[in-house]
């Protein structure tokens, strides 16, 4: 039997690593992966709380979060491909003008 605190601390650490990835990396694909990592950390916390409370609500929220993440990735990656087509780079430091 593991206290739920441990799971929440692990979730906080994973979330921070994801936030650090978004701030530090310059490749938008890796920034996207960091966002997935943050969503995953939140999911872990929700499943841990659902396990403590003997309730399915947390697990169903996680199910919805997974669906939203799939939708987000589909649109986000299409955007990155379009940016690459018009700018020939995807480095976020070079994509800094509104003109297409």
């Amino acid at each position, binding site marked *: 039997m*593991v206290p739920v605190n*441990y799971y929440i601390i692990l979730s906080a650490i994973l979330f921070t690593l994801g936030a650090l990835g978004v701030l530090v990396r310059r490749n938008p*694909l890796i920034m996207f*992966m960091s966002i997935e990592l943050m969503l995953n950390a939140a999911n872990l916390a929700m*499943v841990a709380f659902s396990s403590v409370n003997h309730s*399915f609500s947390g697990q169903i929220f*996680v*199910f919805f979060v997974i669906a939203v993440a799939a939708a987000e990735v*589909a649109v986000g990656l299409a955007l990155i491909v379009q940016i690459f087509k018009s700018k020939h780079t995807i480095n976020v430091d070079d994509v800094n003008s509104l003109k297409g």
Partner: protein
Amino acid sequence: MNIDFILFLVLALAAIATALGMLLSRNAVYSALFLVLNFAVVAVFYLLLGAPFIAMAQVTVYAGAIMVLFLFVIMLLGADELAPGKALPWQRPLAATLAVVLVIEAAYLLLARGAPSGLVTPPTEYTNSTESLREMALALFGQYLLPFEITSILLLVAMVGAIVLAKQEKGGRR
């Protein structure tokens, strides 16, 4: 020092190590593969927390579909290693400082303002049975029917959006 705790510790170290690997890899393909490992470890956590359905959804949707899409785009764009751009010199130290602040803040909120208490329930014969899955399906299609329908519309909109973005306009050049 029981077996559950040792298992948690080993898996937590694996999760943090794979997350760091994703963060620090120069090559985006390595990052994606580290993230697949991280998702697999988190799926094992879900199994330990008595959520087998979520664990399987995690493996199929995240580690399967989403990461394959990522790898496909990385290889399509040849963006596995970016040429250095015009980066701001002070950004990295500032980001590291802010991440440390975030950890301290989270730890403070967690430990000083009433830590969550209770023990997680290890998986039992019930949580891994079809009976438990039936309970969850009843909640999903009963109490949470409206959010479920909204999710289906969201997926449809995302699909249409991705097709519109990827479509070449008539006449070749844009």
